[in-house]
């Protein structure tokens, strides 16, 4: 798929995606990136590099923790895990996101509104 057709990530949504991905279990940076790519069926344009500042931000906010572990192919990698606060944040952010989507779609597409 050409880059132009991919969906650009909205500001702030990367954090939400990372939290959601980690809700399924601990993962390292590369794992998170490929997981997001896979679940979005490659429709989302994510620079893998931009993941790391986001991970740092989340860890500083105590939403995730991390520790060194070994990857499937025997490399040292840092594994990230959701904290209790992260789980709570994921729930509220998800609700907010759904509400936003609902409102925006209502505006953009009044007839199909529920």
């Amino acid at each position, binding site marked *: 798929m050409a880059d132009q057709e991919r969906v650009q990530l909205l500001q702030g949504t990367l954090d939400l995606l990372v939290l959601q991905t980690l809700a399924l279990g601990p993962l390292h940076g590369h794992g998170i990136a490929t997981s997001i790519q896979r679940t979005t069926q490659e429709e989302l344009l994510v620079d893998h*590099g931009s993941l*790391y500042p986001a991970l740092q931000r989340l860890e500083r906010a105590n939403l995730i923790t991390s520790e060194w572990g070994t990857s499937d192919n025997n490399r040292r990698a840092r594994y990230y895990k959701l904290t209790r606060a992260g789980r709570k944040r994921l729930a509220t952010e998800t609700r907010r996101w759904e509400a936003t989507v609902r409102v925006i779609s209502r505006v953009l597409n009044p007839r199909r509104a529920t």
Partner: protein
Amino acid sequence: MKIPKWLRWRSYDEMDEEIDAHLAIEVQAHLARGLSPEEARRAALRQFGNPAAVKQRARENDPLFRVERFVTDVRQTLRSLRRSPGFTIAAVLTLAVSIGATTAIFSVVDGVLLRPMPFPDPDRLVRVTLYTQPQANATVEMPFAELGFFHLLNNNRTFAKVGGVSVFAGANGNDEWALTGNGAPYPLAVARMTAAAFEVLGVPPQLGRFPTAAEGQSRGGAPVLLLSDTLWRTVFNANPSIVGRTVQVNGAPWEVIGVMPASFKFPQPSVDVWIPYRLDPASKSIGPPNIGFIARLAPGATIESATADAERLVAGFAEIGYPLNWTRDILTGKAHVRTVKDDVVGRSRRPLLVLLGTMAFLLLIGCSNVANLFQVRAEARAVEAAIRVALGSGRRRVVQLLLAEGVIVALAGGISGIALAYAGLRALVAMAPASIPRLDEIGINLTVLVFTAGVSVAAGLLFALLPALRTASSRVLDSLRAGRSGNTSRERHVTRRGLVVAQVALALALFVGSTLMVRSFSALSAINPGFDASRVLTFRIAPAETRYRGGEDTARFYDTLLERIRGIPGVTAAGATSFLPMTGGIGGLGGPFLPTTIEDFPLDDGARAPNSVFRRATPGYFETMHIPVIEGRTFIADDHQRRLGSAIISESLKNKYWPRSSALGKKVTIAGAPARIVGVVGDVHDTAPDAPTEPVVYKAMLDESGGGVRGMAVTIRTSGDPLEVLPEVRRTITELDPELPVSDIQTMQTVVGASISRTSFTMTVLVLAAGIALFLGAVGIYGVMAYGVVQRTGEIGLRQALGADRASVFRLILRDGLSMDALGIVVGLAASLGLGRTLSSLLYGVSPYDGLTLLLGTVVFLAVGALASAIPVSRAVRVPPIVALRGD
């Protein structure tokens, strides 16, 4: 700066490892899909983005990152400043000088002129003096005698309360005071004030009480005194129980009734002891005038209404018993009312205001120089800034970096400026003549320090930022192109040239002003004062009334003392006089100014007798001072021992009455007793070298009137350094009278120096300021020329490549610098004329519009301008054209 690992939230190494791991996994995945290692690596990077940028962004998340970046900025700036020491030194020096010098000067002016006196409601506190005209061409301000004082006190409508202060320590102006009874006598500076005067001034004692009106008024009142804070602390160990105790003064018991606070310094800072001034309201005394009149203005009264009121009363002096000639001829019927502060500050005002103007000039020059330096610097860095932007640096970062340089230079300049201000103030106060009042109240004025520092630093930063902001906002390519070809906008050039012109103009004005002061000073120093001041030691003594009963005893003491002093090895002559020349006196005259009648020239009825300065002198005085004898002889022992009634007159007095004949043997009456003229001596400048000489009548220590004098200034001429004989002189005095205090020990040269200290002080400060201004002006021209020449290197190369010879290119560029210089000189000359008018009252023997001085200034500044322009130009024309054309 290395921040220790444990301080970091996460080490950079860990972050790098994590990112590397990510890439490795990605590469492996691509390899597994069958890509070549090279392709796999490229694909992984494409997916990831720029690892370096990611790492950087991750680092910026670190809380310590800002600190770290700041330190890096500072280090980078310091490195860049080290690489251009010329700019750094010039900028820091200029800032330091403009902050330091101006703050120091302003602090002096503020301490003396601007800060209110330490009295409650100082604007209502006034002093009244009388205008008198002892000579047709001289006006002198006089204090009051009792008759006039009480006339004003009782009949005025504008003063709420009136006090009297003795103008001289002793009642007759020449007795000495000392603490006695405890080892060597401790000399005291005494002020007499009426009880009301303490209340007029309104400063309560810190311990004890004021004298009562009874203590103040009855002539035989109790001997009580108040101590100064300094005396209380140094001699009485700040013992609070001193109040009520008795101390020995001149051998008699006095009761201490209080201690004044340290801030109380009236009428002079040097006062050790205040004693009640006992005045008699019934007295008909009209002289000698010794009462300073101080008062609180009544509610509603102004300086103007009080002046009118005082003049009305002075005009009525004839009706209350003043002789007709006092009111008609001596007094001009004028009174002067002004605040005590104006009275204290008096003649120091103008020199200090001139210094204030000097400070403003210096600050202006300094600021424009700083502005110039920073602007040139910032423009030089504009290319660097543009390159940074082109390479992806944020514009904010670029401005930040340029600003960092300004801030660092400003800080360095500011700190050295503050240090310079403190050092400079100390030097100024040490250098200032003792005649400038309130010197001890001077401290660094923090407001001014902040102001000058703020102005000069702001000037630097503003001009550092302007080009930086322009760089940041303009299109990068334009800046790069402009930087290479060396074109700066015309508008920027105009500002800079304007600044240089202003600098040259201001510096020239200061130069002319200081040259005028130097010429005044040398003219003053060149005046022959009428005596030879070199190698003469002087001091004052006043044998105590309790030990030497009458005039005869005292005169005998002086005879013995002088005889013994003449015997000391190294002493060539010794004598004494009642008033030493140039030490001031009543109303600034060299001694009592008394009516003088001459037998051969009787006065018309009602006409006043002309005044002469009256002095007593011992044998040996004229020989010691090298005052030339015009005719006749000097005093001999017989003159006073046998009361011969001998007088010696000054040359100008002789010429007035006997221009072509001898004055010897003629009779003159002054200070009550007739005397026969035995000699004529040369005129002496009595008050200051630039003051007119006054006619003087000298009499011997004793005459038929009974006469006599207690306190005298002893003068000793030596063959070597006069201070070397001092220990032996002291021993001689102690042998004769261990209780006798010796005061005002100094060389005659110091006395003369002090009398022109006002001029020398103003001169020194102006010369310093002018030197600094000249230097700054030269730096300004040099800076702009050097920069301009660098900008025109390409043009210079082109001209030379096309066949212009070095000399013509040199002339072309030099003309540019000289035109700025010349314009500055023209403006500066105009400013000098204005400054000269302000200075005129401080000048002596030189016109404020002195052509020679103006010419000198023009020549000096042309030379400085030419030199400052020629150096960079000559460097530029020596660059081979091919190198110049290649540029950069």
